């Protein structure tokens, strides 16, 4: 399930900024059977001021399907600015209203700086 921004002003940049959800052949089932599972949705590339209006609806569409916790992996998010972090904070708030707890994991150090501006980090410094 991949949701692309309806319009993207940055042209080819869409490839590195799109949200993705993929199948992992290495996911382990509790019964130790190898199976195909949904991996976590992820943000990657550079999400900045110019892209937040496109990424926000895609993120909300992708993660807002069912109540409960959704983990957003930031491992490959190379750059996030204050506007990008503001967009994530807005998404967290909006999703919370529908019962979805969006949890951000594994941010890089400079990405953490931006998340902290919006209290998106927990007490251990990991993304909350």
């Amino acid at each position, binding site marked *: 399930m991949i949701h692309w921004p309806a319009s993207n002003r940055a042209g080819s940049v869409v490839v590195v900024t799109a949200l993705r959800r993929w199948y992992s052949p290495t996911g382990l089932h509790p019964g130790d059977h190898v199976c195909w599972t949904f991996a976590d949705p992820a943000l990657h590339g*550079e999400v*900045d*001021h*110019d892209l937040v209006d496109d990424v926000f609806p895609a993120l909300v569409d992708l993660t807002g399907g069912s109540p409960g916790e959704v983990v957003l992996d930031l491992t490959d998010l190379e*750059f996030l*600015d*204050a*506007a990008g972090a*503001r967009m994530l904070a807005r998404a967290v708030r909006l999703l919370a209203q529908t019962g979805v707890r969006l949890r951000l994991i594994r941010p*890089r*150090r*400079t990405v953490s*700086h*931006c998340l902290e*501006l919006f*209290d998106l980090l927990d007490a251990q410094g990991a993304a909350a």
Partner: protein
Amino acid sequence: MTGIRPTGDWDGSTFAHEGFTFRTDRELIDRVVPFVAEGLSRGEPVLVVAGDRVRTLLADELGADVSRLAAFTAAENWWRGGHDTLRAYDRDLRVLHASVPTWRLVAEPVWLGREDGRKWSRYESVANRCYAELPYYSLCLHDAERLPATVLEAVARTHPLAWAGDAPVATPAYQDPQQFIRSVQPAWGERPRNAAVLSVVNPREARHGVQAWLADAWEARADDAVLAIHELVINALRVSAAAELACWSEADRLVVEVADQGPGLPDETTGYVPPGKTQEGGRGMWLAWGLADDVAVAPGGTGARIRLYFSR
């Protein structure tokens, strides 16, 4: 101690900020104990965050009243750099403000004795502006036996109140925060001739240009510098069609300048003020100032010109 008015005419509705310098145990006790006693007698939460010497003395003097303090904690572990320390302080203030009508604080910023902690005087100065509406009295303690003369001189310029022996009085040396910060920021000289210069019209172009400049010699600081510059470029392009970037090394520091042709900065202290929790925008300067090791804003001239300094 008859006739002492520990908070003078303060009515508990606005911010009062006193810098108190002491040398002897007696001086400290004579100032702080009546201040604490008055707060307790009025039913105000009294918080003490101080170094070991001060806490030991106060514990002896206050006796059982220590248990009536809303906080009695060590200051030694508070310092985590200027921005992060102020941010933690700001969070605690907001929590207090949401729960009690007024409070008083005895605070000893012991980190002013450290080389990297001296920049705290800028935050003390800006506190007068950003906390003006908060209803608390902050009695800031400074141990003259430990602190260098330059720090003590800055105390007088950043605290509007001083102790006159029987009541707080206005400090003659006190300066407006903008004036104080201008006086302590790095001097604004001409750019060196070998500075790399780039004109940019979008933030992505600026980021990639700076990344290329910093790739080798400044790799360890590149991420911080790129993010900080990006935020300044975003601001610059809001008011100007293009922004000019310049970059050079100065002794053991990297200097990056962002200049625009807009109306100039409306408030040069903004980068030192923690953004409000519900505030939507305005975080870029706070972020940039916090990532850099030092910042200078050009005095006068056309547009805004900001230099960020990064140490190795």
